[in-house]
């Protein structure tokens, strides 16, 4: 028996079956302004069985993010692994941060700032690079 979609050819194999913004329920702009490309996000342990049930009812992409971020990942890494544009990934990550499943750590703003912590970081980067 033929499935009704057989023989359909939209001529673009790369086209995603689901339109990107369907995943975000039509939202196109992240509500959280504090998520940057290198904000590190980490999955928080589920606090209750209720929370675990809620995770199961989420979009598959939300669950994928929680799986990916058991070890801290930058927002841009999550986007790359999901194969979704950064802005869309930020919307999904924002949902999870808002509902308490993810923890976000903002990057250190280093540009033109001065201070001892800056120097400490630069020294650490230099020492680390020398070992490459």
């Amino acid at each position, binding site marked *: 028996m033929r499935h009704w979609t057989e023989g359909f050819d939209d001529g673009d194999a790369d086209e995603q079956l689901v339109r990107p913004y369907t995943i975000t329920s039509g939202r196109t702009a992240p509500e959280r302004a504090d998520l*940057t*490309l*290198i*904000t*590190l996000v*980490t999955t928080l342990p589920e606090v209750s069985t209720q929370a675990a049930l809620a995770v199961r009812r989420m979009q598959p992409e939300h669950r994928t993010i929680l799986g990916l971020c058991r070890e*801290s990942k*930058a927002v*841009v*890494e999550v*986007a*790359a*692994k999901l194969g979704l*544009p*950064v*802005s*869309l990934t930020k919307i999904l990550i924002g949902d999870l941060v808002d509902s308490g499943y993810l*923890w976000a*750590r*903002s*990057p*250190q*703003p*280093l*540009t*033109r700032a*001065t201070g001892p*912590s*800056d*120097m*400490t*970081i*630069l*020294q*650490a*980067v*230099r*020492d*680390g*690079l*020398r070992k*490459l």
Partner: protein
Amino acid sequence: MDFASSEHADRTAGLAHTAPLAVKILIAGGFGVGKTTLVGAVSEVAPLHTEEYLTRASIGVDDLDGVNGKFTTTVALDFGRITISGDLVVYLFGTPGQERFWFMWNDLVNGAMGAVVLVDTRRLEVSFASIDFFESRGIPFVVGVNCFHGVRDRTAEEIRAALALDPQVPLVLCDARDRGDGRDVLLALVDHLMAGRSATSV
């Protein structure tokens, strides 16, 4: 080293010890100068690829009456990472070749520690815009001269003059495919940043 003690220590104090701190270095330069090659040479993972949608009201140069004043475009980005320690991760972003997108993509440029502008001696002009961009934004940068296949047909001084480079800006000859060379370019940037900081604090 304990970065959690910095002023950016988070409200989630317990977790601040488990999540590292991230910093960002931009790898810029014109099309085909070897940005992704350099990222790949020093990154601990194969360069990752991602995309971003940029939307912006078109600037008042268009004269298309009745056309929606917004345009959306997709730009691609390759990036890599170097884990310095459990506390610190460096992300390397190969910037999109067309500099006009950088003005629209604040998240790419904001908070960058500094930048490497790669140049190809056979086509110096493709990297002019990158240099202009970082100069105008006041983002510290170094120039990496990618000597493809070891061809060093110009001296550092000649290249410096051709780029009209500020004498303060370091220029390093390298082979972008070589891990050691890539590391040296990044080290030149970090040294440049440290020199800039100790100079301003005196």
